[in-house]
């Protein structure tokens, strides 16, 4: 066991630091708009091999061999220097890897570079009102009419649908094929008539999600990733690219640190909450879960590096962070005391990270959004089935079998 990065990586770290010292923040901050400067910096960083590492050069990437440790060093140093990394977003995180693995050459040329450079943004069209975690029951249908897909139906829980240029979408194109087999992975231009995006207001008051209605929406016949009816498979390869481990744990850790900060600011019985024996114990108890989760991230990353399977733990990351979200929420309410009547501040966790001033509202918002996480990430119940079945070989439960 060795938690140090080793010489080779430390010298790599120096390289990165050197690059950043030279290029960020860009000198003569006057020249060009902030956006242009960031764009230019990202280009440089990519050429230097620090960003878009897994993307081939011909699509605007750095085409570096996969190396999570270098990845870790890079994000540590970029974060320290407050330098911009790849534009976040479901396009870079989910669509690009999918195109690279399954897309046609022309698709990669058309979309990969544009997406990673932030010129094109995407939204995801999986969930539908009728089907939460049950993609087999998707109803949105696409019919081929003289060289075009004509799409009708409705999607829900679509984040970023308002700004997005395109959607990668699961559509039922083979009505006669059984369940999963009838679905295709289709790309849709969001800027066209027939698409109606309605913000979906959450209980916190904010609207990160939308409903998207398709009314005879058109998309070219060949804007399909994988073959007809392979959509389910293709979407799985996308999911595969959702990274767990270290990254995931980071959120929980900073949430916990935020809670400790809250306990230092708020008072209970006239004294700082952090001095209350029960609160102190509650925090220390919670920290047990947080550290376990955090170090399990190290473990999973190590296994990744070795090309070994991390084992059952990787199935648990989501349920785990969801559970911790609940624990944090309950403890936060105890700490807030009377301030727990406050209205939620829409910005919630984002605001928390950004250090917004409406502390009460932010934590009330977390108290609520800790439930949203559970729901968004496919309900905990589904994940527990997976853990019990795939992780420990328990039989599929009878109710689910009926749907087979």
């Amino acid at each position, binding site marked *: 066991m060795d938690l140090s990065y080793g010489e080779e990586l430390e010298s790599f770290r120096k390289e990165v630091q050197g690059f950043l010292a030279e290029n960020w923040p860009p000198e003569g901050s006057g020249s060009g708009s902030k956006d242009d400067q960031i764009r230019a910096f990202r280009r440089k960083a990519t050429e230097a091999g620090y960003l878009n590492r897994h993307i081939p050069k011909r699509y605007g990437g750095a085409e570096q061999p996969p190396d999570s440790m270098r990845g870790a060093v890079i994000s540590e140093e970029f974060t320290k220097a407050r330098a911009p990394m790849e534009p976040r977003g479901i396009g870079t995180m989910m669509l690009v890897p999918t195109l690279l693995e399954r897309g046609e050459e022309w698709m990669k040329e058309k979309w990969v570079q544009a997406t990673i450079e932030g010129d094109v943004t995407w939204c995801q069209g999986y*969930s539908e009102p*009728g*089907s*939460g*975690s*049950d993609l*087999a*029951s998707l109803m949105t249908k696409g019919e081929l009419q003289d060289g075009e897909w004509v799409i009708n139906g409705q999607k*829900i*829980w679509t984040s970023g649908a308002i700004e997005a240029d395109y959607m990668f979408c699961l559509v039922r194109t083979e009505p006669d094929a059984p369940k999963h087999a009838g679905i295709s992975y289709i790309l849709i231009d969001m800027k066209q008539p027939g698409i109606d995006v309605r913000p*979906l*207001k*959450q*209980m916190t*008051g904010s609207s990160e999600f939308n409903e998207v209605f398709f009314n005879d929406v058109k998309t070219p016949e060949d804007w399909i990733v994988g073959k007809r009816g392979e959509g389910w498979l293709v979407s799985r390869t996308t999911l595969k690219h959702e990274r767990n481990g270290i990254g995931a744990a980071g959120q929980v850790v900073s949430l916990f640190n935020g809670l400790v900060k809250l306990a230092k600011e708020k*008072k*209970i*019985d*006239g004294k700082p909450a952090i001095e209350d024996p029960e609160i102190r114990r509650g925090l220390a108890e919670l920290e047990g879960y947080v550290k376990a989760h955090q170090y399990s991230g190290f473990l999973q990353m190590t296994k990744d590096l070795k090309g070994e399977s991390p084992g059952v733990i990787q199935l648990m990351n989501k349920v785990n962070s969801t559970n911790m979200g*609940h624990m944090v929420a309950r403890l936060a*309410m*105890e700490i807030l*005391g*009377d301030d*727990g*009547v*406050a*209205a*939620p501040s829409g910005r919630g966790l984002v605001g928390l990270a950004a250090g917004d001033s409406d502390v009460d509202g932010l934590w*009330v918002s977390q*108290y*609520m959004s800790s*439930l*949203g996480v*559970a*729901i968004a990430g496919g*309900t*905990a*119940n589904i994940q*527990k089935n997976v853990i019990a079945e795939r992780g420990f070989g328990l039989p599929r*439960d009878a*109710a*689910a079998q*009926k*749907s087979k």
Partner: protein
Amino acid sequence: MDFDLSEEQQLLQETVGQFIENECPMARLRELFDDETGYDPVLWKGLAEMGLAGIHLPADFGGSELEVLDLAVVAETLGASAAPVPFLGHALATEAINRAGNDEQRARMLPSLASGEHLATVAFAEDGGVWLPEQWTLASPDGATGTVSGTKEIVEFGEQADYFVVGLAGGKMAVVDRNAASVEIQRYEGADRTRRLAIVTFENAECEVLEHSDLETAGRVRDVGLVLIAADAFGGARKLVDMSMEYAKSREQFGVTIGHFQALKHQLADMAIDIEPARALYWFAAHALDHLPDEAVRTAAIAKSHLCDRYSRIARDATEAHGGIGYTWEGDTQIWFKRAMQDRVFLGTPRLHRDRAADLAGW
């Protein structure tokens, strides 16, 4: 032995429930929920005409001269329908005047309150979780009248109330007219949009001290409040259980209604098991306030703590049981979820009253 509601009480619950269902159905409730002030004078007037503004007040002053249990069963019904009405604050303010006012004060103030012509509320909370009479800090005037200065928080329907019953040092309580000079009423955005809040600041505001007010009478008002919140919490939590059961029967996944899935089924059963027995707890606590003085104070504290914790927990579980929709503003569960948050805090958190219960037990 008869530990059950009387036919009158059951009828009272039905009538009130029916009235709310007609006058404030979900569509109307949502309007008020999204409304800026969230107050519907007509709705409240209607309830007042049914006698809800004076259930516990003497007949001489236009009340029905009933008991705390009668107030509580109404509170349960209002909680079940998340009714956006100032019932709680008004009931406590009038209880204060009736218990702590002298005959002249009662005769002068109560009639227009019992009839619902005027609306009253209580201004008890102070910064830092202060709710208990013995903790109140605002100085009381020496004479029967005088002025009061200071700030009170978490005042339900403070923007609409005509009169505030303000908690003062030593358990004294004084009545302040909203129109008195230098009473500043500031809206406070709370999560619960069915019972809006205000912060009220008095600066040498004229007030009239309730002559017999003291720690005991103020304590009585507190205890009635604890029981009414417990009842509201029971009604709300029980309603959420029913809503979740119904959802599980209608919503389909994997080709069957999700109620078929044992895991969810047991989560729903756990919710029901958690709340159902507490009905008898709030009944007993309410009954004790009028008939079992030795047990009344402590049971009220335990009932409030227990029911508000159950309500908070069930509100979370019900939200999850409703899947995505439960997390949206359109969803109905969130209305109760937020009401549970205010029930938990109003008159003091479970922690505060469990500590009191422990002290009262001589632990």
